[in-house]
């Protein structure tokens, strides 16, 4: 009832608005679409700059932020103009984001999370500015690569800032640093004074409580035989990227619950040792970036520990891995205080042990209950025994290569072996290789005459880099679930669904794809080399064939090219450059989309946390508003509008905004008069025969369409009632809205010869059957749409799908598909009686699509 009243209210409101000519309002609407596209393009372009293929400077980052700020502001002005200032709250959210952005541009690091503590299960690389590299990496090794890691949590940079502010350390530290810079005091004295100030600080109450709670939570989940104390280690920002930081910061071992806050301060204080202070001075580090997150990990009562290098750092050309290990805890091994067993393994499959030196191990560091670690004599029979079994060496080699592929650099891995003989990874960071003569870029000239080239000079690099691995052909080599670790994925389209194997893929290659699509963005996030638009990669390359991909030179070689791999190992990672870090940081305030579901609680002006959110919100409201207005105006005799006259009783009002309809249409518009190409294609899909043949209880199309779209008997139709199905069209554009009882479908598509402008947006929700059936329908939609390269989000039974920047023909084919689905899905929730149906219908749709291809 309330709904009904609301609808009447809407009708009256629309009448009031009718004083502003529709054309004027529609101009606003069109402008909002234009801005929307401009903003999304700029965001995508900015992300594209992270590919490494561009040369940009800090100035560029400032410029792009200023442009985006201006466009988003304009968009908010327009939506308020269109709606009579209904969304003025948007300005508030906008100003918050703008302020944050300004701060980031000044060099400030905003905390992506406000929590002081993040358990490892919740940590990913997106949190790297909150938890530091060490935490982020170890958490991903556990969650994404499924390796065993110690239970633990991160104490975030937000906690660091809270501690810093509560103890007013910023002033103290900068005063001491100033004296040091002026050479009034030496670095030793400066470091000592800063460390004292930190150690004398008070851990904020809330932080102390959070640390203890997180630790208790971990202890409660352990079995009886576990050690109940912690290792507290540094995880400073940028620490993992820079070799010289490694090992500079403090680690505290075997810390009991009550001593955790004290150990936390000791680790923080190591941020200001003389060596680190000197080092930072010489590197590209801004004062605002000097922050430390901390790792708290349950101690592993290791029977053996060690370090694995995935390359020989001094002779990388030997293609071998090195493992050093000894009995007991790892600390004396890492710091080189005890003699260790030394193993050399081949990097190539099989990992044969090519050299082994077993030393006599007299003592080992062991965990003796809580809070106590001791050097103990090694049992006589173990002293000359290798501290790792062959099987463990093999397992380590496999893990090492997996980590190297995932992090894209040679790795220096610390591990422990527990009392069950299982390998546990404690940390993994980049291994810096030394060379008598580091490889030079100019050594790489003339590679193409030395190695067989499969593809060269075509395509675009979505992410720069070199990858070697076997070709895995999408569609031919099985499901994405079977994608092998370290494979190079070759596909017809750079489809968003491929992103699900990002943690396994060494590289991506596609025949068709754009550098601003979703897959490109994810490839850059995970630094997976990606080369798109190769046109015929799927025919030129062969499944299982080993290839080397060099995206910078747009070249694919047959086999491996050691020079290239070699050179890449030594290249400075992009992240070492401040500009890349800054661009990543500003994008965090711009790019993420938090508003998915228009009916969700956060779909409000206040819920907008990024420019993308604001843009999305405005787009949604602009479409909603123009539809509301059109319901009334559609029958105004001055508008270019009319009802579709079709052999199927589809109650559809068409509004033409330019080139969408031809000829006279006093008596309604016949399909033949529609010159809007996207609209034609949708209607073609909706009226596709054949699709209904599979129905067990045969449903004839007319009666189905009628139940689908008829909202009131035509002869009783009043202006307010018709037009519940509305399409705003032009020669290249369609915005179609079906509002049918509980169903709500939106399709917004622009399709022209200009590939960059092409987009399709599809949303489907609602239904009258049980939730389970509706969820099945959502799953079917996601499967079908993903298969045809849409980027899909499903939230409950609502499905949103997007597709951008394919050529006209491919886009139209997919609109035809949407036409099919619109007609189809309504009956689906009635028929979705079993999960098996999903596959059945999916197969049927694929057949229809294939047949249409042939047509």
């Amino acid at each position, binding site marked *: 009832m309330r709904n009904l009243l609301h609808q009447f209210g809407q009708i009256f409101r629309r009448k009031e608005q009718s004083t502003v000519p529709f054309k004027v309002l529609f101009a606003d609407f069109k402008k909002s679409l234009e801005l929307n596209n401009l903003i999304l393009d700029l965001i995508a372009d900015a992300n594209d700059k992270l590919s490494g*293929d*561009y*040369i940009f*400077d800090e*100035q*560029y980052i400032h410029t792009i932020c200023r442009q985006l700020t201006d466009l988003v502001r304009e968009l908010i002005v327009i939506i308020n103009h269109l709606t009579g200032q209904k969304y003025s709250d948007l300005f508030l959210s906008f100003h918050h984001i703008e302020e944050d952005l300004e701060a980031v541009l000044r060099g400030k690091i905003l905390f992506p999370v406000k929590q002081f503590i993040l358990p490892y299960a919740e940590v990913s690389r997106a949190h790297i500015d909150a938890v530091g590299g060490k935490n982020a990496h170890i958490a991903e090794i556990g969650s994404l690569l499924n390796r065993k890691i110690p239970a633990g949590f991160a104490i975030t940079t937000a906690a660091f800032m809270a501690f810093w502010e509560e103890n007013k350390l910023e002033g103290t530290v900068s005063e001491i640093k100033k004296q040091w810079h002026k050479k009034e005091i030496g670095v030793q004295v400066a470091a000592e004074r800063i460390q004292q100030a930190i150690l004398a600080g008070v851990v904020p109450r809330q932080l102390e409580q959070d640390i203890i709670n997180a630790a208790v939570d971990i202890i409660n989940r352990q079995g009886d035989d576990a050690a109940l104390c912690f290792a507290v280690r540094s995880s400073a920002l940028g620490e993992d990227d820079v070799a010289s930081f490694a090992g500079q910061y403090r680690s505290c071992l075997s810390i009991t619950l009550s001593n955790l806050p004290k150990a936390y301060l000791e680790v923080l204080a190591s941020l200001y040792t003389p060596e680190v202070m000197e080092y930072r001075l010489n590197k*590209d580090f801004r004062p605002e970036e000097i922050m430390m997150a901390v790792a708290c990990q349950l101690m592993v009562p290791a029977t053996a520990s060690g370090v694995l290098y995935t390359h020989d750092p001094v002779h990388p050309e030997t293609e071998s891995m090195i493992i050093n290990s000894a009995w007991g805890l790892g600390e004396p091994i890492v710091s080189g205080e005890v003699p260790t067993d030394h193993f050399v393994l081949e990097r190539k499959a099989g990992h044969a042990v090519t050299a082994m030196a077993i030393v006599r191990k007299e003592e080992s560091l062991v965990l003796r209950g809580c809070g106590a670690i001791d050097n103990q004599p090694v049992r006589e029979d173990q002293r000359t025994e290798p501290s790792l079994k062959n099987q463990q060496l093999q397992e380590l080699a496999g893990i090492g290569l997996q980590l190297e592929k995932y992090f894209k650099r040679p790795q220096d891995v610390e591990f422990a072996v527990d009392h069950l003989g299982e390998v546990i990874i404690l940390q993994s960071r980049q291994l810096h290789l030394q060379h008598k003569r580091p490889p030079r*870029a*100019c050594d790489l000239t003339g590679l193409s005459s030395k190695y067989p080239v499969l593809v060269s000079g075509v395509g675009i690099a979505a992410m720069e880099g070199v990858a070697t691995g076997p070709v895995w052909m999408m569609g031919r080599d099985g499901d994405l679930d079977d994608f092998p670790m370290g494979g190079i994925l070759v596909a017809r389209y750079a489809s968003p669904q491929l992103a699900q194997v990002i943690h396994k893929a060494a590289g991506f290659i596609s025949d068709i794809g754009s550098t601003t699509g979703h897959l490109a963005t994810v490839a850059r996030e995970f630094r997976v080399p990606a080369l798109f638009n190769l046109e015929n990669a799927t025919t030129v390359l062969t499944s299982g064939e080993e290839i080397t991909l060099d995206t910078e030179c747009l070249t694919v070689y047959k086999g491996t090219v050691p020079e290239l791999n070699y050179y890449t190992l030594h290249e400075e990672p992009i992240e070492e450059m401040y500009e890349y870090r800054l661009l990543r940081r500003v994008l965090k305030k711009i790019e993420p989309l938090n508003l998915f579901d228009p009916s969700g609680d956060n779909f409000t002006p206040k819920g907008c946390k990024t420019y993308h959110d604001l843009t999305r919100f405005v787009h949604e409201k602009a479409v909603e508003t123009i539809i509301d207005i059109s319901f009334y105006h559609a029958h105004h005799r001055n508008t270019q509008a009319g009802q579709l006259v079709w052999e199927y009783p589809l109650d559809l009002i068409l509004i033409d905004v330019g080139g969408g309809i031809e000829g006279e249409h006093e008596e309604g518009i016949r399909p033949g008069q529609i010159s809007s190409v996207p609209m034609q294609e949708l209607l073609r899909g909706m009226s596709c025969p054949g699709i209904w043949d599979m129905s067990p209880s045969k449903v004839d199309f007319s009666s189905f369409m009628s139940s689908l779209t008829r909202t009131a008997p035509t002869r009783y139709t009043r202006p307010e009632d018709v037009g519940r199905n509305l399409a705003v069209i032009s020669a290249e554009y369609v915005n179609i809205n079906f509002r049918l009882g509980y169903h709500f479908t939106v399709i917004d598509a622009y399709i022209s010869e200009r590939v960059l402008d092409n987009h399709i947006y599809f949303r489907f929700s609602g239904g009258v059957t049980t939730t389970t059936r509706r969820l099945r329908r959502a799953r079917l939609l996601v499967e079908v749409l993903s298969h045809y390269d849409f980027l899909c989000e499903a939230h409950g039974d609502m499905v949103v799908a997007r597709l951008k920047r394919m050529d006209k023909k491919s886009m139209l084919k997919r609109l035809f598909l949407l036409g099919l689905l619109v007609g189809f899905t309504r009956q689906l929730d009635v028929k979705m009686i079993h999960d098996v149906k999903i596959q059945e219908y999916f197969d049927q749709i694929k057949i229809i699509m294939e047949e249409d291809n042939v047509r």
Partner: protein
Amino acid sequence: MSDKQTSILILDDEPIVSKRLQPALEKKGYEVESFTRSADAMARIAERQFDIVVTDLKMEGVDGMEFLTRVKEQFPKTEVIVITGFATMATAKESFNKGIFDFLAKPFKLGEITSVIASAEAKIKES
């Protein structure tokens, strides 16, 4: 100068430009030296000639326009490529009047600058 390596000098006060450009060009077989301070670059061209000079326009100290003017006076055969984030018609026109080879607005793709450099190289080799 058929088989000799083509030499390139890069001048940009933003270190990231040389950092990215130098290895990319070396990978293509060029001999590259890069500078972030115009005074240093100025001193270097007093010592030797480069086939190609890539320079930013707006920098602290000696301005890019001044630098390229000096280069062209001293070595008329050196091809100069200007890269700048502040491309206006006026500056573009002025630098073309000084006889530069091409003008690229930042940010640009590695591929774009390498193809400009390749055509500058071709021009040098023709002459």
